[in-house]
């Protein structure tokens, strides 16, 4: 049957069918990029000067100084760790009811909208902006950082947990409901087992994020290791700054590794 083969060509149809529109959009994008990159004003003399300072900073990593600002360092680190742990725990505790309310398959519409609004607000405001507000209200120090991170944890954890609840297996939920279980028993027996691994995984991940954020919040006065880092930069003590950054990296890596262990274990 092969001698009667008819050759039929095939090409994937283009996403944008009209050729002039397709090439016109491409051209427009290139022109825009050319002019917008060109709008940056590069001061080469300043860069030449700055390269030295940058190099000094990088060199400091070869010779980090953990000792000369030891008490500041320990105090900042302790503050950061306390801030991280407390804000993560408080954030999780508040997130769970909000996540239940923000899951469209559990909550009635008014509750759903209210919880989604809290999540949207928390996610719309970046930690730095919240921290500036909290510092204005509570003054400098780790309390402002704690409240900021708790607030940010709520938006993050509630949203992702609610999504996990929404995608749970309906059959398991239906089966427990059919036994005559009360709403709370139903949550405990049908919903919780399904979302627990995700909740633990997200909490570990958030612990890690909160620690990194605590290092940044110090820059706007919300306490923690970030404040110590800021001071070190202000004094051009790059060797102390390097020591702080190395410690942050090590802690983040330890958290990362242990969270992946825990996530594997709870599956």
């Amino acid at each position, binding site marked *: 049957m092969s001698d009667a083969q008819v050759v039929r060509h095939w090409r994937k149809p283009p996403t944008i069918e009209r050729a002039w529109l397709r090439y016109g959009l491409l051209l427009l994008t290139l022109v825009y990029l050319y002019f917008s990159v060109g709008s940056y004003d590069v001061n080469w003399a300043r860069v030449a000067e700055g390269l030295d300072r940058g190099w000094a900073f990088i060199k400091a990593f070869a010779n980090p100084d953990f000792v000369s600002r030891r008490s500041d360092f320990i105090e900042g680190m302790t503050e950061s760790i306390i801030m991280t742990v407390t804000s993560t725990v408080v954030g999780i505790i508040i997130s769970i009811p909000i996540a239940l309310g923000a899951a469209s398959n559990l909550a009635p519409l008014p509750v759903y909208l209210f919880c989604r609004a809290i999540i949207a607000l928390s996610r719309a405001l970046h930690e730095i902006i919240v921290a500036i507000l909290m510092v204005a209200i509570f003054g400098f120090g780790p309390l402002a950082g704690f409240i900021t991170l708790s607030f940010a944890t709520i938006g993050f954890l509630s949203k992702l947990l609610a999504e996990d609840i929404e995608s749970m*297996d309906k*059959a*398991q939920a*239906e*089966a*427990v*409901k*059919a*036994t*005559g*279980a*009360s709403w*709370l*028993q*139903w949550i*405990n*027996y*049908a919903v919780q*087992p*399904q979302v*627990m*691994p995700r909740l633990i995984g997200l909490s570990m991940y958030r612990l890690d994020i909160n620690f990194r954020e605590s290092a940044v919040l110090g820059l706007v006065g919300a306490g923690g290791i970030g404040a110590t880092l800021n001071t070190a930069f202000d004094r051009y003590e790059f060797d102390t700054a390097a020591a702080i950054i190395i410690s942050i990296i090590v802690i983040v890596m330890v958290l990362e590794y242990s969270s992946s262990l825990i996530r594997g274990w709870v599956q």
Partner: protein
Amino acid sequence: MLRITNLSKRYKTGDDALKGVSLEVPDGQVLGLIGPSGAGKSTLIRCVNRLVEPTTGTIDLNGAQLQRLGSRKLRKARRRIGMIFQEYALVERLTVMENVLSGRLGYVGFWASWFRKFPQDDINEAFRLLERVGLDHMVNKRADELSGGQRQRVGIARALIQNPELLLVDEPTASLDPKTSRQIMRLICELCEERNLSAIVNIHDVALAQLFVQRIVGLQDGKIVFDGPPDSLDSAVLTQIYGEEDWEATTIDDTQTDKHSLELSGE
């Protein structure tokens, strides 16, 4: 005795799943509900325990008007209606014992169920049932470690520990091999006989239904089109229920049925 009168269900999408179904199931009777996909079999049994809210009609279970109950009384009523599911619907991350005990949720308080402190009687009964279905050596296995047949046995134990007056069984053998399917159907029918329990069994395997149930009801497009003993099913009836097809190989004749019931009584 279960008495369904003039039951209709219209979904929000406008589909009429049930169009005035009336059905009586005396105590101790195992009824096989057959019909094509979309005929309303699932909707019918879910209307009985109101996992689906009926639109009109009445459902009377031993004198209680189920369609009228408020949420608290509905939970009480659901305790006395056991349900067995297609794909088992066990809570996969809970143990076999927790799954079985979840059948008692309607009878115990929230904190007792939260701490898994069930009354000793319930635990004794759970062990007895697990022994009866042949799984008492797997009490602490997680449900997702079991095979299909084992899972369905746990599902049966979960339904029976409710001490039900009625069993609703939704395609219990849909994902099981032919041998396991027969074992599961036999187990369900034996248990119903032991406890003088009535059951509605949705099933799409006509021959399997004929082997085990005492009465067959055919549902087609939301209406009952057949109601009679299993041996009265013939090609004409199946054509009425499912539509035109060659039905010769599907049904079993009387001699086979007799032979099998002999096998059953011999065990």
